[in-house]
């Protein structure tokens, strides 16, 4: 999967920096500049997530696009962060190990190496807590 250049510069890709709406208390990751509930009445501020969460649902990816093929099979999950927002990420564990309700915590890992010896893209993955 080719990646637009600016993605590598996005800090929230590396350190779970998101945003929250001070009007209604909702947290957003990736950050949103506009609260979908309060819209212009919302007050958006930056926030950092603890990185702890729970697996809500998952799959084991066995057929992937070329940049990810060498990693297959890999567990992929929707993780609800303790602050209440959900994100999609890989969980580093055995395929048999992952289950709904599993507690996980974030780690900083390599996501892909683009092409042969190409640019390495880093980001957030999770490991069992």
């Amino acid at each position, binding site marked *: 999967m080719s*990646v637009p250049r600016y993605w590598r510069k996005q800090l929230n890709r590396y350190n779970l920096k998101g945003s929250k709406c001070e009007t209604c208390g909702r947290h957003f990751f*990736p950050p949103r500049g506009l609260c979908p509930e309060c819209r212009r009445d919302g007050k958006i501020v930056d926030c950092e997530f603890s990185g702890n969460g729970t697996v809500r649902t998952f*799959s*084991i990816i066995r057929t*992937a*696009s070329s940049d*990810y093929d060498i990693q297959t099979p890999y567990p*992929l999950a*929707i993780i609800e962060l303790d602050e209440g927002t959900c994100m999609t*990420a890989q969980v580093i564990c055995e395929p048999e190990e992952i289950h709904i309700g599993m507690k996980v915590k974030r780690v900083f890992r390599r996501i892909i190496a683009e092409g042969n010896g190409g640019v390495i893209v880093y980001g957030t993955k999770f490991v069992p807590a």
Partner: protein
Amino acid sequence: MREVAVVGIGLTEFGEKWDTSFRNLFVEAGANALEDAGMSGDQIDEIFVGNMSGGRFVLQEHIGALIADFAGLTKNHIPSTRVEAACASGGLAFRQAYTTVASGIQDIVIAGGVEKMTDVGGSETTDALAGAADREWEGLVGATFPGLYAMIATDYMNRYGLTREQLAMVAVKNHYNGARNPMAQYRKEITVEDVLRSTLVADPLRLLDCSPVTDGAAAVILCPLEMAREFTDTPIKVLASSQASDTIALHDRRDFSTLDATVAAGRRAFKQASLTPKDIGMVEVHDCFTIVELCAIEDLGFCAKGQAGKLTEDGQTALGGSIPVNTSGGLKSCGHPVGATGIKQVCEIVEQLRGEAVGRQVDAEIGMTHNVGGTGATVVCNILGV
């Protein structure tokens, strides 16, 4: 608003079409639709064409003009527009054509869809399709399209006790129907064992839970109901056409196993047509993966949440059941050229309502279509009747 009718339908055979080009696929479907309506190209006022990713699959953009050109319709310089909502691009084209005719802006409009997906390798196809979801926050972290729907399946099975066998029965039923559709890509019947033995793609989904990669095109012609008898003895009325949106990413949804955009589009369509699910004789739903058919049946209101597996197991969604689902074979067996699917669904309902669906005919006067883009970020529903 004027009443609108479908007066012509045209399809190409679905499958791997290495011997024909993207543009010729559309031209073939469009010509078939004109032939069916006994109409000349000069009578067409406007074209809408659904296409998800000409740019990725055949490196071609500016699809509207290309299609108008090769369909021989540049002579009159009629407007031609490509519309895109991933796998719901065809549905969107239909709704654009419908509103254009209903509003009185144009009289005779073609709604078509085309996709040529087999010219690139499997891995590139997977990558292009991942663009139907949130590329940055789903695709880039390793989510594939089947993987996202697999996460819906995991959630659904955990909450509602759906069995792996019940899920397989969706594919078995759709292949049975597709075997009776001369345009279908996989015209062969399969068994539950075949599904359970097929390769795992993204647990719990296996190869035979997935719609295939397909080349194909479809086109329909719409006009005001009051003009329809000039072209056909069996005009099919568009009783409703609705569309809804939701978050692009699955992880932002209220409930992973309910497609809220399906619920919204369905309700709007029923309201517009002043009908309820009980009035519908058959439905073409978006079974890009077996789990989605079950979600759709429930979210459209044909049964309660969690009951669609049982309904399928009891044969109620099969030909002859209380609500036949995907008589064309669905995306599963008929094939899923993403931009064309939403139009193909309309073609199937029209064929059924005209009584021309030989070998898979359902006795009904009202049918419905349901077309999903992404994992449910866009949904289009249409209700058609005799």
